[in-house]
């Protein structure tokens, strides 16, 4: 299955992913229209500056997702095949159990309705909006083995560079 991988060393903290995410989850799906919408479009990916590093946080769609377990009403559900955790706003009662058990802190609040919002990995798109928007390829949407292969290749290139010099 494809996952969104994060390459921490590549993130420059430009927050393009946050913007793209909010636009993607607006009604109009266009930046110039989205900014006037109510409820205000909300990002589901968060870039944090921690001790000089920039780290994008987005839902890891955990295999054994604590948020799904904690959800009383079944608003959060996990696809049995893709393991994507989706949130049904109709069933959400705004109790914040999911936010309290999430180890990554990636469940946000839709301020107007006071219910949870979280990454749904852009069901309407081939590639999630945040990945597409990332200028530095800090976010990668790929298969797990392809990602490790990529990292391996990069590492060997780096190593060879030093060797040749």
């Amino acid at each position, binding site marked *: 299955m494809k996952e969104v991988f994060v390459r921490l060393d590549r993130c420059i903290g430009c927050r393009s992913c946050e913007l793209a995410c909010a636009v993607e989850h607006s009604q109009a799906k266009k930046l110039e229209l989205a900014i006037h919408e109510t409820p205000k479009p909300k990002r589901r990916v968060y870039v944090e500056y921690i*001790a000089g590093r920039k*780290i994008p*946080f987005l839902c890891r769609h955990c295999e054994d997702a604590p948020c799904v377990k904690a959800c009383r*009403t079944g608003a959060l559900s996990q696809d049995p095949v893709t393991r994507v955790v989706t949130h049904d706003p109709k069933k*959400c*009662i705004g109790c*914040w159990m999911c*936010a309290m058990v999430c180890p990554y802190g990636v469940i946000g609040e839709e301020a107007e309705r*006071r219910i949870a919002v979280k990454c749904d990995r852009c069901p309407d798109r081939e590639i999630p909006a945040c990945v597409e928007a990332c200028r530095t390829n800090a976010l990668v949407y790929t298969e797990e083995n392809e990602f490790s292969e990529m990292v391996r290749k990069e590492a060997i290139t780096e190593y060879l560079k030093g060797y040749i010099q």
Partner: protein
Amino acid sequence: MKRLLLIRAERCIRCRACEVACAREHGGQSRITVVETECIAWPVSCRHCKVAPCIHVCYREAIRYDERDMVIIDENLCTGCGLCELACPFGAITMVEKQKPSKCDGCQHLVLDGKTPICALTCPSGAIVYESIEAYEKQTRISFFSPVR
């Protein structure tokens, strides 16, 4: 940003300070219960849901939101039927003597004065916090990727 009573369950040391403080503040009946299992403990109290089942189920409209979006019970309208106790997804409403429901009112008397609810004030380990979801989640994210770990 609306501030809420949120729980950092991993911090709970099941000391029950919240229960004692809550009982003192609300005339002897604690509205928060510390639940413990072998590996974790956490305080259970009303989550003040936005779509609150207890409000929907109450046919007398005795349960409502106050100015700060906390779910409160109007004791004068309540008949003690126990529907809210059964409807609550968290078991946070208990019926006490003479079938009066007892549930967290988010320390309405303190919060309206600009203070913090008593359980969040007294929690020695900082397991109960009174802050916005935004701030809470940010704290979670930052502590997840703290530098030394």
